[in-house]
């Protein structure tokens, strides 16, 4: 939760640092430095953990208005920062008849053919990267060619006839345009990025595919660290998205079949993920279940490994003596007030908690500005349920001041990776009640073997189950001995398996390996 511990409040964007070369170029999509949260905290932690490494960063966002000011003070070893918005309103090149260079559409067709039918072909990733690189103003597939080229128009029409199961050509046309536009935005920024000894993407998707392009242009090792699984998250968003149209009529529609455009978007992100996995030299997951998912999505097993998050134990251990002897009847959810945290389930659970423990309080400690509408809904829900006296919205809080006052760290999220707040709570001696998402069961019950023998450091419950969440919280808060046992198990678990130094050691090895590598791509490129 370093994210919340160290935000800045400057409204204006400060001048961005620039450099010609860096050691590590971080490729960040929708995270540091404009969004607070677990991934951003981790990025900040890594940069501070390697003061001798010169970092650069590319922030990839959707539209400028979706982000506020920077949430972090940029560390001194971040020597370059660039920003690109993929869906910002932007002037297209001037409209004029454009002809594609001879052979360019054949190359486009070949890459699409490979993606469609033979993505596992080792040439696919190289062919894609080469085509992506040709999406420059002077390249074979410039933005003008895509937007105005007769050949491009013909190719879109032909693809529609061959593949689309949705009758609307207009929707097909605009879906293709929207799908592809980010490639030109990313390609445009590539030449102005500094040369790097290592490209380090924090997700697949647009950040990952940028890594593929940069590696193609300047052969250097490419490291991918995934906190969540980007493809899975996009899939879930897309399954529920109501902006995607489905124009099939009553005779064409089969409710068990997904609409064409929805499946097109999903396939698009699956392909980006697959290509990123192929291009990456090392692929890091936070925990085994995510590594398995990466393998399912096409990551080569030999490249994958797990490096769990870690926290600064000493910092939080100092808080243990500050806590009162008995566990305070305070359930604290530390995190951004956003739908993925399912704050509403936490609030709903308080109906049951206060019925059995009237003095109990729910604290929600985290910024509310990322999704103000959701924050308002949460406040309204607390009112509706008659819990206004028991639910407190604290906004940003310093963890070192907050943790000694709480009895439980609660996580009601519907999706998580390996949440730092649970570990930070453990280090401060606070057990947790968490939903069964991401690695939370592993963090609470331990991995089979020595870890599990340490005992449960809290409780795990099903998502969106307020009653179960309440019962789990009450079972710890109303039983002093049980609470102490969970607290002790949490301390032992975090000290044994999740110390920050262990994570830094693992990344130090990866960085050194990359810095000292005679790079095979380089050799093949020069030959």
């Amino acid at each position, binding site marked *: 939760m370093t994210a919340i511990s160290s935000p800045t409040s400057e409204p204006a964007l400060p001048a961005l640092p620039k450099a010609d070369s860096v050691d590590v170029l971080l490729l960040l999509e929708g995270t540091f430095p404009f969004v607070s949260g677990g991934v951003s905290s981790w990025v900040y932690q890594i940069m501070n953990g390697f003061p001798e490494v010169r970092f650069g960063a590319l922030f990839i966002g959707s539209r400028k208005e979706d982000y506020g000011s920077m949430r972090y003070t940029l560390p001194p070893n971040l020597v370059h920062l660039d920003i690109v918005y993929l869906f910002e309103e932007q002037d297209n090149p*001037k*409209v*004029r*008849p454009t002809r594609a260079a001879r052979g360019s559409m054949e190359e486009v067709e070949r890459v699409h053919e490979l993606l469609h039918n033979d993505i596992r072909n080792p040439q696919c990733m190289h062919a894609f990267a080469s085509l992506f690189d040709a999406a420059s*103003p*002077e390249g074979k597939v*410039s933005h003008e060619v895509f937007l*105005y080229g007769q050949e491009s*128009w013909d190719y879109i*029409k*032909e693809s*529609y*006839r*061959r*593949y*689309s*199961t949705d*009758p609307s*050509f207009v929707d097909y046309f605009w879906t293709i345009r929207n799908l592809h536009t980010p490639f030109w935005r990313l390609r445009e920024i590539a030449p102005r990025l500094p040369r790097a000894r290592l490209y380090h993407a924090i997700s697949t998707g647009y950040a990952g595919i940028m890594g593929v392009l940069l590696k193609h242009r300047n052969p250097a090792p490419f490291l991918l660290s995934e906190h969540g699984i980007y493809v*899975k998250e996009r*899939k*879930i968003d897309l*399954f*529920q998205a109501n902006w995607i149209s489905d124009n099939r009529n009553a005779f*064409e529609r*089969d*409710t*068990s*079949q*997904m609409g064409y455009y929805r499946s097109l978007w999903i396939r698009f992100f699956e392909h980006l993920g697959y290509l990123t996995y192929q291009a990456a030299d090392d692929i890091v997951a936070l925990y085994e279940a995510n590594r398995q998912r990466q393998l399912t999505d096409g990551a080569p097993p030999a490249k994958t490994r797990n490096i769990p998050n870690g926290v600064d134990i000493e910092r939080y251990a100092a808080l243990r003596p500050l806590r009162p002897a008995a566990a305070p009847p305070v359930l604290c959810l530390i995190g951004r007030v956003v*739908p993925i945290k*399912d704050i509403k389930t936490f609030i*709903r659970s308080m*109906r*049951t908690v206060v*019925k059995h423990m009237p003095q109990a309080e729910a604290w929600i400690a985290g910024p509310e500005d990322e999704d103000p509408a959701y924050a308002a*809904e949460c406040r*309204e*829900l607390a009112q*509706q*349920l*008659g819990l206004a006296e028991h639910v407190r919205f604290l906004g940003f809080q310093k963890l070192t001041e907050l943790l000694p006052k709480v009895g439980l760290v609660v996580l009601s999220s*519907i*999706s998580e990776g390996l949440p730092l707040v649970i570990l930070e709570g453990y280090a401060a001696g606070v057990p947790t009640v968490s939903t069964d*998402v991401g690695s939370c069961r592993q963090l609470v019950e331990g991995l089979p073997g020595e870890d599990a023998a340490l005992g449960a450091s809290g409780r795990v419950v*099903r*998502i*969106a*189950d*307020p*009653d179960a969440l*309440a019962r789990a919280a009450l079972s710890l808060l109303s039983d002093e001995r049980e609470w102490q046992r969970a607290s002790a198990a949490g301390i032992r678990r975090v000290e044994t398996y999740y110390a920050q130094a262990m994570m830094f050691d693992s990344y130090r090895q990866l960085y050194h390996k990359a810095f000292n590598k005679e790079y095979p791509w380089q050799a093949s490129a020069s030959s």
Partner: protein
Amino acid sequence: MKTLYWAWLALIADLGVFIGPLPLEHSLGAVLTVIGLHASACAALGTVAWLMLPRRYRSRPILAWLLMFDFAFIAPVIGALSLLLVVHLTLRREEDDDAQALPRSVELPEYNIQSKVANRTAQGSARARLTSKVPDNVRLQSLMSLQAVSRRVANPILEDLLADKTDDVRLIAFGMLDSEEKKISIHISRERQNLAREMTTVQRYDILRHLAELHWELIYASLAQGELRRHILSEARRYADEAMGLEDVEHDSGVLVLCGRIRLEQGELDGAEDYFQEAIALGQPEASALPYLAEIYFRRRDFGEVDQIMQRLARLHLAASTKAVVELWTERNMLDNFRDRNLLPHI
């Protein structure tokens, strides 16, 4: 285009240098002056020509500029003139291109679904296709099909899937339930705000009734469980009772049925019965109120009364699901080999 005037001026100046008296003089100073003036004119020309270059040729600016300059410098006047002619011709070409870039109608491709292979192998009930033994992609498709099913049927299935081992299935189920709950909550929130305003008794009655119905909808659609469910029920009852308590308003039988259903759900059978009886007396269609009375008698194990109500219902025009229950009660003695599942296919 104003930039081009400077180029023409530079060309005239260059011409002036060579047709003027300076080249005829035999001093070093004159030679250097001629070269200097010529170089200046060429530099101006080179700069203008460089600025006119399409962006894609400007990636190496110094080399591009030097090329333009050299061209003008090496062949005095003629080089400059040629350079300007090329610039002019290129610009005209671009203008012509722009002129052509007027909107024109294009032919759209025809759509023929017959040409695509439709995968229609997904058979079986949604529940069967959502079990963990089915491949995840089929399960996800099946989840989509639940969007076409009534909420009362779909929501309990989605509720079960919240404990699914596959993240995608679990999260999509959550998303579907959450969006459903959100739709209702937004209305509740709006009506609660409306309730705080000044209004007539009739308006107040309408809002209270709507609030009671919205809370009831959360229960009916299985969107709340446990303590939360109890709380929402009590809120529904509070709003319904408050509506019933208003004077100078014509109370309709629909609110009475709602009051009865809330009490029935809370297990207050006597209170519920009173409301249903009163609703029927006020004109509520028997087809919609009698089934609840039957349920009350059934819960009291008063099967004789249930039988009588079923006889009354049998004479009415009923919904298919109610009709199946009525037939089970009224015709069971006439059937030799009845099987519940045949008579109650919806169970």
